């Protein structure tokens, strides 16, 4: 296996980490030095040729090769066996439907939210439970980080240059979760709603803002829980832009849905009907321009275009009544979530 990347020689491993800082190759945290043996192991684990082009980013005219992906995956701290997940995520963000350039560059400042589904999530120990968006799991932390380092180092998505986020958010370090696919979940795994079989492995990428937490410990019905969620979502980042939204339900809310027999579609339909504002409210809040007409008072607009634009996921700690909604970046014309199969060699 021939690796073609330019080589840099330093005195020791500490010097290698310093060089990565000096050359602007990190996200601010230390990286694992990408030595040839580590990079080769990463490529071997996916059985992929180093010069194979995994993606071509049209707006940047940049070819993303497996070798550069593997180098950045090593730097992020990935185990070699994570490489197929990283590969699938890179392919997904290059899908025209995802529309890389807009969400990566925009002042709106999205991160790549990643959802891993299928048996591989358990095999590689991706977290789908406690402290869902927080630290503590190597697979979640490093696979998400690998994608951000690839965006930075290979595609040139550098803060202040071709990443013009005004605010950014913590998910831009890493934003990767798995789903509860056990019997306690009220729903079949998310990827089956995208046409995949339960035993297939997939990663879903979604250009997303930070998770917004809601709390409802009073309700024992789906309507009760979702009333709180919709009240929070009505005026949120996607109001009148209508991107997709991810809705993340933790253990206790999963139990409420399961007991009531509510399907994923029931949740989508309920939220579509109840996360609405009138155009008059939207204009009064300075989210849309123009004078308020009589029709604006009765024209109701949901935060998404269709019920299916809610990405409904069962994930989070068993205890607790805190769910999350995650607004997507921009609108659907600019970016949509993409689900890609993870191919294990």
């Amino acid at each position, binding site marked *: 296996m021939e690796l073609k990347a*330019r080589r840099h020689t330093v005195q020791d491993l500490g010097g290698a980490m310093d060089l990565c800082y000096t050359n602007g190759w990190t996200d601010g945290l230390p990286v694992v030095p990408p030595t040839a043996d580590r990079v080769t192991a990463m490529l071997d684990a996916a059985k992929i040729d180093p010069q194979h082009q995994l993606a071509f980013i049209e707006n940047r005219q940049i070819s993303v090769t497996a070798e550069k992906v593997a180098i950045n995956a090593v730097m992020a701290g990935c185990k070699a066996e994570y490489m197929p997940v990283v590969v699938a995520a890179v392919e997904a963000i290059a899908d025209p439907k995802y529309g890389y350039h807009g969400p990566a560059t925009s002042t709106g400042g999205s991160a790549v939210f990643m959802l891993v589904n299928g048996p591989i999530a358990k095999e590689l120990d991706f977290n789908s439970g406690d402290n869902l968006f927080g630290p503590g799991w190597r697979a979640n932390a490093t696979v998400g980080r690998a994608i951000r380092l690839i965006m930075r180092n290979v595609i040139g998505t550098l803060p202040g240059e071709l990443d013009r986020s005004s605010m950014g958010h913590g998910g831009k370090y890493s934003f990767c979760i798995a789903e509860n696919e056990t019997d306690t979940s009220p729903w079949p795994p998310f990827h089956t709603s995208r046409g995949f079989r339960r035993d297939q492995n997939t990663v879903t990428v979604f250009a997303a803002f930070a998770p917004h937490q809601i709390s409802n410990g009073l309700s024992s019905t789906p309507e009760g829980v979702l009333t709180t969620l919709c009240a929070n979502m009505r005026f949120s980042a996607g109001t009148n832009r209508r991107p997709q939204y991810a809705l993340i339900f933790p253990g206790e809310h999963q139990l409420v849905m399961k007991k009531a027999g509510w399907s994923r579609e029931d949740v989508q339909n309920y939220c579509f009907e109840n996360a609405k504002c009138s155009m008059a409210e939207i204009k009064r809040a300075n989210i849309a321009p123009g004078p308020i007409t009589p029709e604006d008072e009765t024209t109701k607009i949901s935060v998404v275009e269709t019920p299916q634009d809610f990405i409904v996921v069962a994930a989070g700690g068993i205890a607790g009544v805190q769910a999350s909604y995650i607004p997507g970046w921009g609108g659907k014309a600019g970016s949509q979530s993409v689900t890609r199969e993870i191919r294990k060699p």
Partner: protein
Amino acid sequence: MTVQILDPTTEVSGRRIAYARRPKSMEGLRVGLIDNTKHNSDQLLLRIADILEKEHGSKTHIIRKKKSSGAAPHAEIIEEYKANCDVIVAGVGD
């Protein structure tokens, strides 16, 4: 003992990008304006077209709207520009 690490960045491939030819004069040319969907971008572009016509002699203009500021113009409006325009004014106003 020294350590050798691999460069994680894209290395220059030396590929050339062909730019459209620039006109020497705007006299008599038809202008295409690409509205990038941002508020007031149409007003800014129409003002530019006005200046091009009054001060630089361009003949006409058309304005069409992209579907998203982050995406390239869609095929239908590209065809319209190709059929009806000699120069294009594009850019992201925010």
